């Protein structure tokens, strides 16, 4: 039995090691200062991927600016204020279903609402809004969970000392839940950074060798760029494909590591 369980564990860990190792092996030769800081040349077959890197950073930050305040506020509402009734049950079901929608559907929805109906065009703002809707369920449910994990007795004590409900949330509950909330935020944004389908119709440019000037500009982005150079461009050097994949992987994995660090640090310092 022990052997079986060990084997199962190895079976889940090995592919990760293999994938990361394989991509690093083939991608590392492509990594250079020029690759990270230059514009693409010769039909993307040479030069760098700076526009795609910048585009993904903008999209991730922009998504954070929209989704974090909304998601955390909704989490606070659900954990601290919402009564258990039909209305809040409907909200919870909606959030669960939102989390289950395939990402390409978000992309089509973003195309219809933001790009066409609201006339944002293919733009960073349309992409961020689309990615925000996709990210919200993760942020809301982890925020709610983190808030609920704070012991009820803290709330009662704070209120018995003359605290209002909001003072109690702001000064006691939220700081205690913050590490959990941050973890959810980072994991949500990490998914936003890596998704291709939602940005496909809303923001991503096939080939746009300059940096975006405003939020109404289209931009290149790493996941879509990777798709393009892997399938749409003949004669593409393989090391550029894997180099791009490696950059995206490092970007996403480092967010993951930050989330893990926040969580373990908070657990060590927790006073309950």
């Amino acid at each position, binding site marked *: 039995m022990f052997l079986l369980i060990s084997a199962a564990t190895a079976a889940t860990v090995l592919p990760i090691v293999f994938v990361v190792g394989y991509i690093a092996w083939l991608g590392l030769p492509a990594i250079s200062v020029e690759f990270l800081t230059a514009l693409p040349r010769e039909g993307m077959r040479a030069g760098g991927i700076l526009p795609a890197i910048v585009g993904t950073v903008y999209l991730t930050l922009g998504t954070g600016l929209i989704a974090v305040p909304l998601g955390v506020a909704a989490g606070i509402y659900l954990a601290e204020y919402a009564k258990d009734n039909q209305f809040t049950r409907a909200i919870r079901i909606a959030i669960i279903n939102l989390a289950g929608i395939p990402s390409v559907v978000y992309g089509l929805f973003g195309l219809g609402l933001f790009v066409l109906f609201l006339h944002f065009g293919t733009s960073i703002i349309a992409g961020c809004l689309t990615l925000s809707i996709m990210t919200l369920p993760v942020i809301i449910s982890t925020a709610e969970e983190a808030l609920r994990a704070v012991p009820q*007795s*803290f709330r009662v*004590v704070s209120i*018995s000392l003359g*605290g209002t409900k909001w003072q109690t949330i702001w000064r006691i509950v939220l700081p205690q839940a913050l590490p959990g909330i941050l973890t959810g935020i980072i994991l949500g944004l990490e998914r936003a950074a890596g998704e291709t389908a939602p940005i496909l119709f809303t923001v991503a440019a096939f080939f746009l060798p300059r940096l975006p000037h405003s939020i109404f500009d289209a931009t290149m982005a790493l996941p879509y760029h990777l798709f393009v150079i892997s399938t749409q461009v003949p004669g593409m050097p393989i090391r550029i494909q894997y180099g791009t994949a490696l950059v995206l992987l490092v970007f996403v994995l480092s967010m993951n590591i930050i989330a893990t660090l926040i969580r373990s640090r908070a657990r060590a310092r927790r*006073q*309950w």
Partner: protein
Amino acid sequence: MNNTRAKIVVDHLSVQYDDGTESLRDISLEILANQITVLFGPAGGGKSTLLRALNRLNDLVDGVRLIGKIYLDGEDITGSRVDVTALRRRVGMVFAQAVPLPMSIRQNLTYGLELAGVRQAGKLDFAVEKSLRASALWDEVKDRLNDPAIALSGGQQQRLCLARVLALEPEVVLLDEPTSGLDPISTAKVEASLQEIKRDYTVVIVPHSVQQAARISDQAAFFLQGELIEYGAGKNLFVAPQNKRTEDYVTGRFG
């Protein structure tokens, strides 16, 4: 003692729940200023419910209905327009389980004052020292006020909770079985503090045993299944109870 002014008047108070159960039935009593009033009796008698009604902590529970009136210094505190946060500063509460807030010892003590808008460092320092002295904790923690409160021992934590309430300079201190989790030495320290603080405050306590009730009470109220069976000076009630049920309980015939 000459001072027998009523600090709190409970007037025909009943507390009911949505599911039809009742935890207090038509209670009337006067709680005297600067005395220790103990509310005692078997579990489920309504003592804690009464305590929580006195600073409106029952508000936090859904489906509680209160009938009757409670007056603090002649002022009704049961209405919906009462400023409950101001009330809770006047009527503080110490719970059965010591719950230090997840911050330093000092911050635990200044928390309530800061919520009330007190910012001056001098005032806060003064309140910290005064309240720690009143709860007999000053000498033990004065050199480590910035340590996390959770690092204190159980008995120290409970005295910190008492000090935290005293820092607000309330008028009434409610204690719900404050020594139930403590060893005899810590218990004795808490009880000694109560005897000290009653000069400045009105104390209402649910004790964790009849022995403790008898030891510390000036006034004693015996509760049984939501009813007030007997109420009077502790020195009479524990020696010569008027009611048969009180006598049975006090002498240990049921419990």
